């Protein structure tokens, strides 16, 4: 079994008002050194695959379901390998 973490967030060009709001709240905490906050979500997917098969599966799951390419983008990394 392999556990993969897929990170989904808005594309760089898309305005992220939630991130802006959180940045303002961080500033209210006194952390003026924070210059940007981008919000995203991640999915931990456990699957019985490795190598090319794994890469292909993750790509298809992300492309077809987890990501809306009109506004979002993704990266992933392997957390645990059996």
């Amino acid at each position, binding site marked *: 079994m392999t556990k993969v973490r897929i990170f989904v967030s808005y594309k760089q*060009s*898309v305005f992220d*008002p*939630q991130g802006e709001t959180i940045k303002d709240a961080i500033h209210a905490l006194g952390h003026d050194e924070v210059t940007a906050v981008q919000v995203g979500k991640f999915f931990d997917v456990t699957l019985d695959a490795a190598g090319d098969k794994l890469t292909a599966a993750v790509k298809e799951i992300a492309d077809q*379901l987890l990501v*809306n390419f*009109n*506004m979002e983008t993704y990266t992933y990394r392997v957390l645990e390998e059996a």
Partner: protein
Amino acid sequence: MRIAVVVFPGSNCDIDLYEALHSVCQADVEYVSHHEKSLAGFDAVMLPGGFSYGDYLRAGAIARFTNIMPAIIKMANEGKPVFGTCNGFQILTEAGLLPGALKRNDCQRFVCKTIPLEVVNNETVFTRQYQKHERIALPIAHADGSYYADQKTLDQLEENHQVVFRYAEENPNGSLHNIAGIVNERGNVLGMMPHPERAVEALLGSSDGLRLFKSLLANGTAKVEA
């Protein structure tokens, strides 16, 4: 004209669409479950508002994997009228029947109120009974209604007159180009965040949405030619 109102798990404005067509317009309308695979015998299909699959993942993202979706896409490709309001609009973009996407409102909140819109294009099967640039008031009720598309898509939408409704005074959600509703290039698929089906009786505050349904019904069963 026989119209299908699709019921997805979590649809909740299905009754609003149904009653607007049935009680107010005396149209021939039927609920169709998402389990069904065919829309044979229907001349138009409508996707209601609500929270299909709880808006989990993204609003409208999961509904597109239901049994009924290929039949909706088929109708769209045949040039038959396909209409989605609110969550229905979100589903149409997620399914690729309309360009762009609906993001979380800029204010990060669900917003329910009646707001002014401008009818930008009155040459669609859905808007023929409106005047061009007419101001109407329709309710909105959504948390994810901020229309987003890249610049190229926006340019195309404007050039092809695909923007049908725009927010006229205030932009309640941060939509680009104040977009409230768009059609596909062929003009037979309309998606909009406001709820015309909630504005068909003066008793409930506004009847400005009525002409959208009347436009469509007056059109009979004619297809929109490519």
